């Protein structure tokens, strides 16, 4: 099959052997999975494996338009249909506006559970039928009449950021998320890329498009909620983040978390698609309003078209390269397609920017990355969130750079690879690097001949020193400056939401200080006590429980 006699897996224990103790009792052992007997007997308890007498089924009526005003929702015919117990609309949701990362104090509430006046993507829910069977719920959904007034829409990220484009969300009137209350994009500035481009022998440019992708877990997203004793509600859920979903339900239902009992932990695949906490609040609300167990579960079509995908990303890269293959400047312009609401895309961009320019030491790096709203299904996390798309761009681009300078593509990576002690573009020192060794092992396996210098290279050698220095000059700018947002860490509207005490007084992370050695930053667990890690003022909000504790 493979045409080679190589093993399907091997462990290269000779690398970094002096950094490991390989003689532990349980660590490093191929112990069978704790859950494997449950899996092979069909007894593993997934959320839908909890049976309830009198279970009701919830299904949503959804927008057929990319953008529309809702003039009227008429559920009267649906409510009279056999088996229909209740139809929920937006006004039934106690707090019908949320942004997922409000639990991290990040962003402005922008998304209703059930839209009341306007829809912003095809598939957006406007009403939820609760009925005695799934089939009856589907029939009733078809009987809901909505009087739509279609509105102009925009689907492309670069169209959406042009002046005059249809506004997707009024709270972000230029269709761009606001970073740090200051800019309509996330910046990265390290050195002076424009000056370096002028000195480079070759400039290589590229445009890359990452496609939207469905997480496609075999188990579709959902939750079953039921009244429990003492005014509590149990919720069996497929969530990837139990307390995230619990806190989101607590916030949107204006219900103390002590009344919520969430159970999960055995999930039929997630890949990032089960963080959004859509189902739990609606299932609990249904159980509250009917007094009966309610299941809200996507079918496969909803999973694919309504469930948030890995968002599309568009990247423009420009490299300045010397004839010997050294990359001296790299500039990124990126557009994340967040879809109609923020969900988690704003956060993924910061993660992505902290990752640039990829695993290479490049003395001049610049990035402008935009979180753009369009009239499509909101995007969310997926395996490699914030990284997969830009890594595709970077590594496809590296191949073009290798061709432009006439260099072996593996050697180009090793030449530019980051090494222990190098300064990274986000101004922290690299440590624990291993890119070079991975490249060498693959070259060896594939019979790619490397020069003696490339074979001799190591992540632990030749880093630091000159390569540890911050650029003597960094070109900064105020492009994309916004007004009317508070200059705290995260985007917040001025008058509406005062910052937590102390947040404004915080200096930005030390910009002119000598870089802290990265190794000293996170204390090892043995010395890690809660007192020693007291976070900054206003930190209650980092806890996913903070939203209601503060009230």
């Amino acid at each position, binding site marked *: *099959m*493979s045409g*080679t006699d190589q093993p399907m897996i091997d462990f*290269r224990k000779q*690398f*970094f052997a002096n*950094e490991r103790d390989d003689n532990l*009792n*349980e*660590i*490093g052992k191929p112990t069978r*999975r*704790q859950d494997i007997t449950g899996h092979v007997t069909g007894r593993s308890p997934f959320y839908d494996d909890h049976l309830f007498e009198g279970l009701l089924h919830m299904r949503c009526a959804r927008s057929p338009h990319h953008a529309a005003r809702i003039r009227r929702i008429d559920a009267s015919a649906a409510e009279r249909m056999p088996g229909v117990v209740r139809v929920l609309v937006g006004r039934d949701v106690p707090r019908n506006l949320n942004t997922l990362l409000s639990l991290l104090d990040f962003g402005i509430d922008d998304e209703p559970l059930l839209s009341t006046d306007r829809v912003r993507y095809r598939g957006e829910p406007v009403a939820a039928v609760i009925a005695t069977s799934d089939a009856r719920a589907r029939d009733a959904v078809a009987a809901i009449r909505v009087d739509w007034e279609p509105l102009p829409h925009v689907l492309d990220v670069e*169209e959406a950021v042009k002046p005059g484009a249809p506004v997707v969300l009024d709270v972000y009137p230029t269709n761009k998320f606001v970073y*740090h209350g200051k800019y309509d994009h*996330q*910046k990265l500035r390290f050195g002076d890329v424009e000056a370096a481009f002028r000195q480079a022998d070759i400039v290589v440019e590229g445009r890359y*498009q990452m*496609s939207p992708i469905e997480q496609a877990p075999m188990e579709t997203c959902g939750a079953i909620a039921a009244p429990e004793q003492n005014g509590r509600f149990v919720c069996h859920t497929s969530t*990837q983040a139990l*307390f*995230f979903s619990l806190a989101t339900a607590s916030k949107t239902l204006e219900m103390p978390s002590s009344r919520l*009992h969430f*159970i999960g932990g055995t999930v039929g695949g*997630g890949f990032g698609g089960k963080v959004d906490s859509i189902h739990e609040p609606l299932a609990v609300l249904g159980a509250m309003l009917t007094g009966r167990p309610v299941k809200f579960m996507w079918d496969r079509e909803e999973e694919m078209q309504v469930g948030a*995908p890995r968002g*599309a990303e568009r990247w423009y890269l420009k490299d300045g390269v010397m004839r010997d293959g050294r990359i001296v400047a790299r500039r990124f312009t990126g557009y994340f397609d967040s879809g109609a609401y923020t969900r988690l895309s704003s*956060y993924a961009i*910061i*993660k992505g920017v902290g990752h640039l320019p990829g*695993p290479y030491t490049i003395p001049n790096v610049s990035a402008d990355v935009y979180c753009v709203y369009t009239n*499509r299904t909101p995007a969310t996390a997926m*395996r*490699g969130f914030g*990284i997969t798309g830009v890594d595709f761009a*970077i*590594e496809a681009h590296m*191949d*073009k750079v290798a061709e432009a300078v006439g260099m072996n593509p*593996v050697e180009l*990576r090793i030449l530019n690879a980051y090494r222990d002690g190098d300064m990274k573009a*986000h*101004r*922290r020192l690299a440590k*624990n690097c*291993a*890119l070079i*060794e*991975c490249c060498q092992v*693959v070259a060896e396996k*594939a019979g*790619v001949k490397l020069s003696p210098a490339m074979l001799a290279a190591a992540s632990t050698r030749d880093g630091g020193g000159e390569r540890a220095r911050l650029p003597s000059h960094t070109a900064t700018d105020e492009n994309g400056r916004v007004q009317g947002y508070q200059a705290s860490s995260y985007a917040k509207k001025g008058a509406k939401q005062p910052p937590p005490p102390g947040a404004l007084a915080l200096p*930005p*992370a*030390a910009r002119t200080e000598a870089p802290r050695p990265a190794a000293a*930053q996170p204390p090892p*667990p*043995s010395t890690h006590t809660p007192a020693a890690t007291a976070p900054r003022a206003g930190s209650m909000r*980092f806890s996913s*429980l903070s939203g209601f504790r503060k009230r």
Partner: protein
Amino acid sequence: MALHRGRGFAAINYPIGMNLGGDPSQALIHSNPDGKFTVALSAIDLGQGMKSVTRQIAAETLGVPVEDVYVDTADSDTGPHDMGSFASRGTHRMGNAVIMAAREARAVMLEAAAEELEVDASDLVTDGRGNIHVRGAPGRSITTLAAAQAAQFKQGRTIAGRGIFLIPLSDVDPDTGEMTPVSTFAHAAMLVEVEVDDETGEVTVTDMKSAYEVGRALNPRLVEQQLRGGAWMGMSHAAWETTEPYYPQRDHGPVDFNTYLMPGPGDLAPHHISILERPAEDGPYGGKGPGEMCANPVLPAVVNAIYDAVGVRIDELPATPEKILRGLKAQGGAKPKKRL
């Protein structure tokens, strides 16, 4: 009309844990009357093996056999707070919380054993097979079962431990992007071989050779599961999958698995994996998190291989036959590069 073979390479790194920190995980551990331990978490096992890896970490730290540990997750009434299973944070963050909890429980267990053996607890060691003995004197020993029972039914001690791991949230400079995104990175390199049919535009991945650096492979078989399955997903992302085939248009969106395409068991490529282990200094026993990064190198390696095979650059994923045929047409047929 012909089949063209090509090779493509890519290398990546991957940040472990939630960006900027601020993502705590907690763990509680206690001993049962039979000397077995229950680990209570709110972590989620999505198939990545959360229950299994925390079980091994707990057993290692407690000094008891893995069979003596059961991980119970996730019930918000009994499991303490955890941010969740995403951002490659599970093993790293929760693993550390479990170590802290297990150390505390282990200390009580050793105190109980010391009282029974009439020695100082600091002189005791565990053998990992259910025994506690005086260092250098294996004869002076007590089983973990006897120690647990003595603690609970004679001495009046609770053998329990609490653990939390939190890297405090850090700020971002709006003007320069200066930040402390994460504490450690995983790494990978990948070379794929493809066959491109210049008549149909179809791409077949015929072989993958990879090296993944994962910190410590806490359980080598769980790591292999992630890498093999993740690289399959990368291949799928590269040449098969999308919810919007004509992005940014929303037409032709798939609604079932007949129209949402992924490689099946007949479409696999042999994947030769090499694993490197450079322990993360703040990872649990050096572990990082292999689950997310494993797909990433495959996407660019496939498009680079297509270019190597026929000279067509695919800068927009997925690399469908339609895009390849359009590229071939635009350049007047296959132009093999054979650079690698």
